[in-house]
C-alpha cells in the first residue's frame, strides 16, 4: 500500500478522543499542518495495545505553526502522526 499523503500536503488531525491509548497528542487535534516528511510504516499503537494485529500504516512528520495552534508564537512544532489520525485538508 502506498502512502496516502505526500510531502507538502495539508492535513488536519482528526478530533477523535479515543478511550484507550493513542499517540495523537491532544494539542494538535483539529489543527491543520503540512506533511514535511514520511517516516515509514509502523503498526498503529492504538491497535497494538488493544491486542489487534493489523498491518503497519504510514507515519508522517506534520509541521504546525504555533500561531495556528495556540494563537501566538513564531516557532513550529513537528509531530509524528499515523495515517489513521489524519484527514486531507488541502485548501485549508
Amino acid at each position: 500500500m502506498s502512502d496516502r499523503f505526500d510531502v507538502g500536503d495539508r492535513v488536519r488531525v482528526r478530533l477523535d478522543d479515543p478511550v484507550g491509548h493513542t499517540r495523537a497528542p491532544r494539542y494538535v487535534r483539529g489543527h491543520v499542518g503540512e506533511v514535511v516528511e514520511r517516516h515509514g510504516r509502523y503498526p498503529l499503537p492504538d491497535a497494538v495495545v488493544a491486542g489487534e494485529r493489523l498491518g503497519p500504516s504510514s507515519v508522517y512528520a506534520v509541521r504546525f505553526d504555533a500561531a495556528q495552534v495556540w494563537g501566538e508564537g513564531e516557532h513550529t512544532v513537528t509531530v509524528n502522526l499515523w495515517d489513521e489520525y489524519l484527514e486531507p485538508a488541502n485548501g485549508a
Partner: protein
Amino acid sequence: MVHDDATVSRRVRALETELERRGIVDGGMLDDILDRLLAHSTPRQGARVIAHAWVDEAFRRRLLDDGNAAIAELGLSMSHGPAPQRLRVVENTERVHNVVVCTLCSCYPISLLGPSPSWYKSESYRSRVVRWPREVLAEFGLELSVKVEIRVWDASAETRYLVIPGRPVGTENATEDGLSALVTRAGMIGTAAV
C-alpha cells in the same frame, strides 16, 4: 498525575511480577533486553557522531539524509532495543535552532545518548517547550536571537531525533577526539549550545 520515583518503581515491580506469574516473560528476559540496549549507550556515542559530522562534510550530508545508514559507518545502530528505530538528524545553523521533546512520554535516542535526563521526562519540560520554546531555552541559559527560527520536534512515534549543534568558534585546529569531548548531551537535545 504525580509520579514520584517510589510510585513508579512499585508499579513496575507489580507489572513485572504479574507478567512473570502469567508466563509472558521470564525473570531474565527484561534484564537481557535492558542490558543489550544500555551496554554501549552513553552520550559519548552521540558525541562521536557529531564530531565526525563536523570534520567530514560528506558524512554530515549522509547523516542528515539517512541517519541509520550513516551511524552504521561508525559501528553504531538504533536496533538494540525491542524494535528498530528510525534516526532523524537535524542541524542547528545561524538561522534555525532545533529542540527535541516527547510530549506524550519520553521517546529519546537511548542508543546514542544513554538514558534520558530526568528533566526531559518532566511534565514541565514536555508541556512548556512546545508552547514557549524560546522562554524554556532561556531558562536553560540559551538566549537565542529573535532572528533564529525555532523548530520543535515532538518525537511521539518510532523516529528518534538527534541535533547537530553548531561547531564552536575557534576549534578549527581541534582533533576529532578533541571536538567530541566538547559535545554535550544537552547540545544534542537542543537545550544548549556547544
